[in-house]
């Protein structure tokens, strides 16, 4: 019997495809998410919009809170560690979390290096803004990638930019002549072996979700049409005026993203409930941007 193999680590992400992973800060919210059809929850002390508002240093969440959320639901539970904080990751593995998110939403612990994720039995998901970043994280052992977007902004533009950057770069590799791949690997800052694999298969070797800015059912359907295999929703649900309705509507729109009729029904099911307030990302200065943390 072998645990912690690439197959089982990547395999759990494969079983989450087509689904929505929701940020929750209480066991009650976790139940709301599960009832709405979430495939997993991300256990947090504060959702990204509140982390953004609070400022200061954001760290791994309280273990007692994470434990109560794990007890409250039967779906997988994920939690975040700071970029490069190997000890926080060891702690989460020890308490039996199902997936670790080495996340730019928290304040980075290491400004040069990420965690060696191959050393863990627990699988990791990491954010990426482009193909090179995605392949560097996979080389470190990430078993799932999410496009970063700009967390807590309620603005989909960065998520679109990042998923397009990844998809476009994959499309270019697919048609690139073999002799170009060494130079392209150098330019991407990614291992040649992974670049060759992506060129051959036309997709990342792990599941690709989208994150950072999804706040309506139509946002979710957009990201799925752009090639995301599933959706992370952070602030978009529990910062809306009707979390249960938003959660269910975003799940429906993600499942049936090809069918505008279902997306219409999902939008209508919200009635007059408002989505979370949004931020024009161009008004944020460098110190307020999360996506640029960890490259």
């Amino acid at each position: 019997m072998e645990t912690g193999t690439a197959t089982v680590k990547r395999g759990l992400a494969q079983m989450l495809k087509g689904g929505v992973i929701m940020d929750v800060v209480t066991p009650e919210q976790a139940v709301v998410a599960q009832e709405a059809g979430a495939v997993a929850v991300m256990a947090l002390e504060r959702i990204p919009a509140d982390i953004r508002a609070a400022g200061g240093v954001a760290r791994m969440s309280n273990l007692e809170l994470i434990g109560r959320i794990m007890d409250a639901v039967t779906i997988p539970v994920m939690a975040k560690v700071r970029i490069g904080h190997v000890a926080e990751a060891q702690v989460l593995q020890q308490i039996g979390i199902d997936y670790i998110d080495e996340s730019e939403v928290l304040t980075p612990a290491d400004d040069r290096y990420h965690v060696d994720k191959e050393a863990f039995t627990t699988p990791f998901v990491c954010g990426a803004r482009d193909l090179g970043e995605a392949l560097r994280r996979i080389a470190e052992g990430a078993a799932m990638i999410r496009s970063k977007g700009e967390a807590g902004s309620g603005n989909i533009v960065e998520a679109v930019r990042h998923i397009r950057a990844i998809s476009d770069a994959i499309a270019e590799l697919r048609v690139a002549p073999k002799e170009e791949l060494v130079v392209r690997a150098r330019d991407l800052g990614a291992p040649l072996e992974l670049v060759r694999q992506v060129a051959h298969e036309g997709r990342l070797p792990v599941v690709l979700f989208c994150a950072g800015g999804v706040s309506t059912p139509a946002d979710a359907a957009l990201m799925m049409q752009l090639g995301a295999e599933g959706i992370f929703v952070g602030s978009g649900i529990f910062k809306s005026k009707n979390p249960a309705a938003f959660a269910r509507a975003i799940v429906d729109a993600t499942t049936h993203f090809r069918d505008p009729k279902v997306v219409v029904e999902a939008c209508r099911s919200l009635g007059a409930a408002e989505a979370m307030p949004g931020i024009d990302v161009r008004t944020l200065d460098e110190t307020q941007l999360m996506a640029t943390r960890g490259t």
Partner: protein
Amino acid sequence: MRVGVLALQGGVDEHLDALARAGGQAVPVRTPVELEGVAALVIPGGESTTVMKLLARIGLIEPIVARVAAGMPLWGTCMGAIVAARDVAGLAQPTLGVLDVTVRRNAFGRQNESAEVPIDIPALGIERFPAVFIRAPWIERTGPGVEVLARRGERIVMVRQGNVLATAFHPELSADTRIHRFFVDATEASRAVPGKRSDAA
């Protein structure tokens, strides 16, 4: 002879690929109309609470149950086994109830206990199948007419009851297509039996 893969959520593409590699013609099934066009159905791995809700919302529960009653081959892997089962131990979770077993969810543990384990399936003549278990269930009770096909240690991880097959593991995640080939063959055989209704709801 088209084999459908329920494509609401989960490891759909992996089954479509594996069925194709096993010589089958596989198509995704998302609606009652698409279900009418297939001779058999695979319910993949995924999250069972999520998929039961999605099945109910799209009106697929009754059509699937009726087709299975009429003889359509059904194969559930991991979540699919949970969805097919009569009931779920310790949880009041809705299921299709087309397989007379009780399953226990996440019975082998959380993700850190997910593992690759070789298992033997004597009734199918398969030795050392590289079974991938991910937050896997086991089968705790089997009703009359349910045949145990494989165990991991003491625990039941593969069963068959008439036209319904269930595995607690994920054959679609390994390169080995022997179980997929068995299901494709069983689908063809079910259509070849004279007088057996398997194409009408």
